[in-house]
């Protein structure tokens, strides 16, 4: 009697809540999502090919521009891969500073995630609170290296320079300030009935699905798998830090929210330990040439970025530039699971799911 048909809606690439230039081809039955296909590539810059034409020390600034929200982690991962390839030992002080910076960056990234995730679900104020606090982290970065977003603070064999005078004290002030601020976000959201209704049971992904889709990072841990590269294969100075890997069994958006908030607290804990134990000494490995050559071979190095496992695969044929680069982007892999997480939900859930996956399209498209 009546003719019913599915509605095809294009969400993005210009859309307020797709976090960049993501395009989702939605098939809707009324308000219910029947199918969702992420279409990516709008921000593809050919970074991997570009790296083959740069000498090793020219690549880190490009890495910064992959995941620009968590640029320090990208930088760290690539540089550690080069160090692994060339067999360079990094002095202890540099390893500590790297850890502190990486954790500060994780905190900044999680703050952006919380703010935008809240904004997508309609909680406007959280966004401004989060960016207010992220500003302090960016100020610390600026004091250290002069840049705020794409920082490029690490060098092959160490770090850019020693910490400026007063930086450690400024960092301490920041980590003393943060715990009450995190309480503030929790006060706005954690027990808010509307927030609970919008996030509990939304975008559920089981531990098995998460593992088979290759999902990593907070998303995997919120499905109950305690997998964290910082624990399993410690890099930088993580082997000397005490911290917990928060997990939740539910695997829904609310669980991921709680896991990330707890990670923010753990990051503060790591930074505090790093500042307390910061050893004196050298910050660069001695005698490194600018146009360094890495011995022929290949290397794969993984680190735990704010969004998940960031992998860096380098092949060298003994020359001045990498022969082949490949970056494993957590945004890309996690985004692939969006179908599993949002089929059968409502249109409004799509927005919550995009927010909770915490994608950065620069990372995703490379």
């Amino acid at each position, binding site marked *: 009697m009546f003719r019913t048909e599915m*509605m095809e*809606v294009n969400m993005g690439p210009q*859309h*307020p*809540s797709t976090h960049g230039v993501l395009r989702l081809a939605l098939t809707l039955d009324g*308000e219910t999502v029947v199918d969702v296909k992420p279409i990516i590539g709008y921000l593809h810059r050919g970074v991997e090919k570009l790296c083959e034409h740069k000498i090793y020390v020219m690549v880190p600034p490009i890495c910064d521009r992959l995941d620009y929200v968590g640029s320090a982690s990208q930088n760290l991962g690539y540089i550690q891969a080069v160090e692994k390839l060339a067999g360079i030992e990094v002095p202890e002080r540099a390893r500590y500073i790297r850890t502190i910076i990486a954790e500060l960056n994780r905190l900044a990234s999680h703050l952006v995630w919380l703010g935008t995730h*809240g*904004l*997508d*679900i*309609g*909680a*406007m*104020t959280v966004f*401004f*609170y989060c960016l*207010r606090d992220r500003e302090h982290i960016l100020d610390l970065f600026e004091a250290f290296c002069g840049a705020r977003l794409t920082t490029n603070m690490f060098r092959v064999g160490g770090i850019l320079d020693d910490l400026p005078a007063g930086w450690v004290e400024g960092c301490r002030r920041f980590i003393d300030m943060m715990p009450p601020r995190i309480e503030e976000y929790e006060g*706005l*959201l954690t027990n*808010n009935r*509307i*927030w609970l*209704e*919008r996030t509990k049971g939304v975008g559920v992904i089981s531990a098995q699905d998460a593992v088979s889709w290759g999902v990593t990072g907070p998303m995997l841990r919120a499905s109950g798998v305690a997998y964290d590269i910082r624990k399993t294969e410690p890099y930088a100075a993580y082997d000397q830090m005490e911290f917990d890997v928060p997990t939740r069994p539910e695997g829904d958006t609310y669980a991921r929210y709680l896991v990330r908030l707890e990670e923010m607290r753990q990051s503060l804990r790591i930074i505090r330990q790093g500042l307390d134990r910061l050893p004196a000494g050298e910050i660069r490995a001695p005698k490194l040439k600018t146009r360094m050559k890495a011995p022929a071979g290949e290397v794969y190095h993984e680190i735990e970025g704010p969004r998940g496992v960031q992998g860096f695969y380098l092949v060298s044929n003994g020359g001045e530039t990498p022969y082949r680069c490949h970056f494993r982007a957590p945004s890309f892999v996690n985004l692939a699971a969006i179908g599993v997480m949002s089929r059968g939900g*409502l*249109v*409004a*859930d*799509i*927005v919550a799911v995009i927010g909770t996956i915490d994608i950065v399209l620069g990372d995703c498209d490379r």
Partner: protein
Amino acid sequence: MSDQVIQNVIIPAAKVGLLLAVMGGLVAYLTLLERKILGFMQLRLAPRRVGPRGLLQPIADGIKLLIKEDVVPDGADRGLFLLAPILSIIPAFAALAVLPFASTPFELFGYEVTPYITDVNIGVLYVLSITSLGVYGIILGGWASNSKYSLLGALRSAAQMVSYEVPLGLSIIGVLMLAGTASMVGIVEAQRSSAWWFLVPQAVGLFCYFVSAVAETNRLPFDLPEAEAELVAGYQTEYAGMKFAFFMMAEYVNMIVVASIATTLWLGGWMRPFPNVEALAFLDWLNWAHPALSGLFWFSVKVLLILYIYIWLRGTFPRYRYDQLMRLGWKWLLPLSLANILITGLVLVWRNP
């Protein structure tokens, strides 16, 4: 001109003109107030570049909207597309006709002028029926735009407004039972004997009314029709320039209207707090000028208070999902407002058998 013409045509027309002009300005400045309050809540500065402390910002916004290109999308139903914003703004303004801003008439050139446009004996019914017409503008706007986002927004909006109409209407009935009249002036007068007006005996009714009214006016946490994160801007997506401004104005006039209705029905309209306590007569401090001014003062204070709560909600809450919104309306507000009517009736019978 005969007195008859002046009394029945000229004076009401002048009042309507004045009210439209004042309300237009108020709406513009309500947007500024909202941005200022949100800025204060969100630790930012809010507009402050245009004019002293940003006070000319609404005028700049108005000029910007006026001189914008007026786009009608390809494939849109041109007639309906133009009609929709008008259909949405007319009922919003029309509802203002029966709001009693103050009671005492004043003399002007020898004619007695009441400080409201008119008082009809079915004032409440008039407001309810007129405001529910606003949904046509939204549906037609969404349909005529020929855009999927607009259509989804309009569908949501229709379902939402029709659903919340029910608890909205039922929540008012308790007040009508206590007042024994549907005239807006009569309802305010009926609250004179109570210290806290109808606020205390009808608190549940006010709660139901307020929640439904927020949903009726499509404000956060119920702003699904225009949920910017999902549907870009809902039914307004394809609108630009003055047509968009009409939708915005309708939304803000509606906010003022529902706040005024809440003030009239529950918060004693133009009356000061404790209208039955003689010792507090000094609260009517504007009486030295004219009692109507004093009434207007208290009316505005109460309306502003409710508007502040509106903006506060927007600063605090996330947005409901469509199905949750429906559940709240039908499963919670409807039974609650029905229970309110039942209990009010029982108490009335018990008091005067």
